[in-house]
């Protein structure tokens, strides 16, 4: 079945440094969604990418969808303490969704 792999599992960065998490699928995705989960919280939808090669920005966050629609990345510029949490990518097909294992971001002050 479809698998969504995400790396790295953990990332420690100094506040102000950049952060990137990568997502790869074993099959072509119709779309990729990104979520953020704060410690002790629930997943919160960030964005959805649909088109091959699509790039979307939300303030310091940049999301990319690969040309082959099998990989995606989330890049955060100049991390802040509020960025702490786990970032999940997920591939949705109609009414089913597969999440990656997530990247847990720790910010060192």
């Amino acid at each position, binding site marked *: 079945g479809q698998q969504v792999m995400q790396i790295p599992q953990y990332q420690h960065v100094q506040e102000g440094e950049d952060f990137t998490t990568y997502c790869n699928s074993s099959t072509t995705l119709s779309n990729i969604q990104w979520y953020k989960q704060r410690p002790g919280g*629930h997943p919160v939808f960030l964005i*959805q990418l649909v088109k091959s090669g699509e790039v979307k920005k939300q303030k310091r966050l940049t999301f990319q969808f690969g040309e082959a629609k099998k990989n995606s990345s989330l890049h955060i510029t100049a991390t802040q303490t509020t960025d702490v949490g786990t970032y*999940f990518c*997920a591939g949705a097909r*109609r*009414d*089913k969704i*597969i*999440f*990656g294992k997530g990247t847990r971001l720790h910010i060192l002050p």
Partner: protein
Amino acid sequence: EPEVTQTPSHQVTQMGQEVILRCVPISNHLYFYWYRQILGQKVEFLVSFYNNEISEKSEIFDDQFSVERPDGSNFTLKIRSTKLEDSAMYFCATARGLLSYNEQFFGPGTRLTVL
């Protein structure tokens, strides 16, 4: 801002007991979902529900699990005979349309502890 609510926030039960987890969707949403997250692990899709029917389910969603929307508002997940490995956070989520095209909104979750 409308939000998904879930009750209870924490449920402790003995192995073999039945539990019912409840969710109140956002009012104009038509698609409902249950997810499971074992502590420190990824979010796992259990089931999707639309028009009073299951539309998709995962391998995890076996005969021990069932969902229904008995009164047109609450959306429930029932686990008939709980096992130790059912201990996890259970999230309900709702969306206006299919996940392929729509954002889903998660509730705060119910932490299920099976002893």
